[in-house]
């Protein structure tokens, strides 16, 4: 339907996907950022379904008072794993899928700066994700909540394996995120095509750039916090040992120094995606580009100064409370600027309501609600009534689901054609949007009420007569609707991958560099490195842009024919990743594995580092 009405440019033949690159082995050994991006996409979507399934069971349990679908023990594992999965295994990697696939295309590069490191990041993520997810099948999944407060997570209070999986799993995932972040920082700084100045970079790349710095600065802190916990649990140190006089707030501070930047890590890529979607479907450049850049940076920097707003109830004292409160409120300003600039981007445009656009607008509408409730938490006395209730749960689902997930869906609908060469079904897409939109609000809006009416979070059961029954029922119905929405999407995704309409290079009439190359892009992305003279080379560029776009949209030639040197495929990063995970498994299962894993890791690492990346240049 709507697809046919869209302007399409470029030739309408589906480029054969990754010629000579099929079969399992090619996926295991690939170092191509696009294929790694696809791996990330599929893996993360799978984890999203798993996290969603966990949420559905949570909602089933809470549908009415005194529910007994699951036991207290299992419930606690479910919400811990739901939060952990959604944050570390679904949204972050979904963003990573876009980093991988898009950043090199948007800046006119042939690959990321360190292709093998990139593969390594993915494999570490996959193995780490499996490591932390599997235990729930054996009823030993992590059960300390997604922020695993000490001392509840220490050995005396959590003697089982549950938290071991969590500590080690997060440690593993941290390696993946850090490695990827160094890679993308370098890529964005150093691999921009000629003329692609920083202030011409597409907004998605910009926001990703900010996110990489957040990762690089936030993850070491949680690494340290987790190391302490790991040492406490395995080697008898006393960092969180209350009997030894430890201060339980140490964990909280370290966690949230990571945790708050983390929430911007989750939302800024979505902001970036929406900043691509809105101009595309408004046929107008992004409004206030420089301000959008600076506000993104400001959000990132301020994000390091607000962590203790998660701790207004811990008794920090009036000075600490006030300072963190004020800095938190400040963040509303740059975020507001983004919201208004997006609306201004749409104003005076010619809006096309594709599915992608609808999700993009959905983000503006819903994130604002979450942002406003965020500001409500930022007032410490008021937060004393809100913290640890469903009001908070409402807030963070509005920003996470209404922000990150909506943005990511907008991105998936926008970039699916670029990734696969085929269009997603727009009809199903719109149904998906509306069911999703209704379900989302029905699930999470009532939580504002149940929270302010006194319902604490993380309770596996509640009594009748507390005034919460109706709101919980609404939330549960909403969650079932969301499940339907998600299934529609999954169906659309799987079907269109093989049977969608052929997309062509630029099905949406978008303006940025990635739309100048065929869909899916050839291995080498750009036959010639493009010359960039403007922010939207396809809209505003001069003849030089047009010329490189013309050459690049041609297809058919192989890298060899074009004398483009591509890195060798290699299995080594995967072996290093696997060895590392085996090493960590040793802590839990059998000590010898530690040495086997470490030895194998060192050997494969040397072998990786000492083997050439690519053929000698001619």
């Amino acid at each position, binding site marked *: 339907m709507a697809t046919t009405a869209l302007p399409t440019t470029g030739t309408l033949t589906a480029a054969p996907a990754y010629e000579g690159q099929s079969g399992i082995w090619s996926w295991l050994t690939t170092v191509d950022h696009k294929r790694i991006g696809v791996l990330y996409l599929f893996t993360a979507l799978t984890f999203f379904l798993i996290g969603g399934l966990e949420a559905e069971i949570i909602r089933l349990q809470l549908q009415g008072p005194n529910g007994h679908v699951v036991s207290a023990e299992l419930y606690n594992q479910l919400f811990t794993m739901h939060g952990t999965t959604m944050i570390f295994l679904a949204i972050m990697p979904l963003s990573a899928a876009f980093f991988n696939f898009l950043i090199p295309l948007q800046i006119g590069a042939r690959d990321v*700066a360190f292709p093998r490191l990139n593969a390594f990041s993915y494999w570490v993520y996959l193995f780490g994700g499996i490591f932390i997810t599997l235990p729930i099948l054996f009823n030993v999944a992590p059960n300390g909540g997604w922020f695993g407060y000490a001392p509840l997570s220490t050995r005396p209070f959590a003697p089982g394996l549950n938290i071991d999986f969590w500590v080690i799993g997060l440690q593993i995932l941290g390696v993946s995120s850090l490695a990827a*972040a*160094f890679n993308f920082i*370098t890529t964005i*700084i150093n691999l921009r095509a*000629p003329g692609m100045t920083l202030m011409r970079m597409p907004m998605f790349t910009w926001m990703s750039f900010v996110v990489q710095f957040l990762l690089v600065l936030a993850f070491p802190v949680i690494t340290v916090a987790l190391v302490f916990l790991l040492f406490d649990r395995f080697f008898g140190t006393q960092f969180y040992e209350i009997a030894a006089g430890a201060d339980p707030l*140490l964990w909280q501070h*370290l966690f949230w120094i990571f945790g708050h930047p983390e929430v911007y890590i989750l939302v800024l890529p979505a902001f970036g995606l929406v900043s691509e979607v809105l101009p595309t479907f408004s046929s107008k450049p992004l409004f206030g580009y420089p301000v959008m850049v600076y506000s993104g940076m400001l959000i990132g920097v301020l994000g390091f100064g607000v962590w203790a707003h998660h701790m207004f109830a811990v008794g920090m004292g009036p000075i600490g409370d006030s300072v963190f409160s004020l800095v938190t409120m400040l963040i509303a300003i740059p975020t507001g600027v983004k919201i208004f600039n997006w609306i201004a981007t749409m104003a005076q445009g010619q809006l096309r309501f594709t599915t992608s656009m609808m999700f993009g607008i959905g983000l503006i509408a819903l994130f604002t609600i979450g942002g406003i409730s965020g500001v409500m938490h930022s007032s410490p006395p008021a937060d004393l009534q809100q913290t640890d209730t469903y009001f908070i749960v409402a807030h963070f689902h509005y920003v996470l689901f209404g922000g990150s997930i909506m943005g990511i869906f907008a991105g998936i609908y926008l970039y699916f054609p670029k990734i696969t060469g085929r269009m997603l079904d727009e009809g199903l897409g719109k149904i998906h949007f509306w069911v999703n939109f209704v379900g989302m609000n029905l699930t999470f809006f009532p939580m504002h009420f149940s929270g302010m009416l006194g319902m604490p979070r993380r309770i596996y059961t509640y009594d009748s007569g507390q005034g919460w029954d109706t709101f919980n029922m609404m939330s549960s119905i909403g969650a079932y609707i969301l499940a339907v929405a998600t299934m529609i999407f999954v169906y659309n995704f799987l079907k269109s991958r093989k049977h969608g309409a052929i997309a062509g290079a630029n099905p949406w009439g978008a303006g940025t560099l990635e739309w100048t190359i065929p869909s899916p892009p050839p291995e080498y992305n750009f036959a*010639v490195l493009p010359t960039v003279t403007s922010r939207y080379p396809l809209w505003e560029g001069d003849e030089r842009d047009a010329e490189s776009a013309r050459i690049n949209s041609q297809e058919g030639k192989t890298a060899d024919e074009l004398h483009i*040197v591509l890195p060798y495929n290699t299995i080594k990063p995967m072996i290093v990743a696997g060895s590392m995970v085996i090493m960590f498994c040793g802590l839990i299962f059998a000590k010898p594995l530690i040495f086997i894993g470490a030895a194998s890791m060192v050997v494969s690492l040397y072998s990786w580092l000492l083997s050439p990346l690519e053929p000698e240049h001619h």
Partner: protein
Amino acid sequence: MSAPAAAHYTSTGLDSRKIAIWAFIGSECMLFVSLISTYLIYKGRSIVGPFPHEAWTSPSGQHFKPILNIPVTSASTFVLLMSSLAMVLALSAVQNKELPKRTTGDRILGSSKLWLWMTALLGTTFLGFQAFEFTSFVHEGLTIRTNLFGSSFFTLTGFHGAHVTAGVIWLLTLLAIDYRRGLGPKDALNVDIAALYWHFVDVVWIAIFTLVYLIK
């Protein structure tokens, strides 16, 4: 001005690896700050001794000296600082490999192998000091499990020691390459990156030495 297809064009003209190592060092700042903060936060909060700067008598009457040994640590600090000097000389030797060496001084200063060995050796000496320190602490009754001070002290200095160890291995790897095929200006960047890492580990020690050892 579009770049030739095969060349590895970079926007800044800088080598990607060097950008990455600096980003890595930035990240390490947060790592060590977390560790140092923890040490300082827990300073004076241990319930039982031994303590860093104060003597302590246990309820059972056992007496413990202040545990930190400033003279020994000063010596090891000196060693680490000198290793940084050796490291810059190693780098400059690699960079200037092709320059003619006229005097003995030139030849000594120009020997990358000498300076790499020297750096690695000084690094190892530092680690030796640390091993000595750790074992003597354990003998005096302070282990990583004893109290908050023990946990945070050993973890902080242990993390630093692990970084030094990794650095030594890195240096030995470079040395192996130097013996196999010689390191020349082409490799300067590789050596430079190792050097940046090495110096960073050194500056972290400068901070630790003051914050942990000297301030009471």
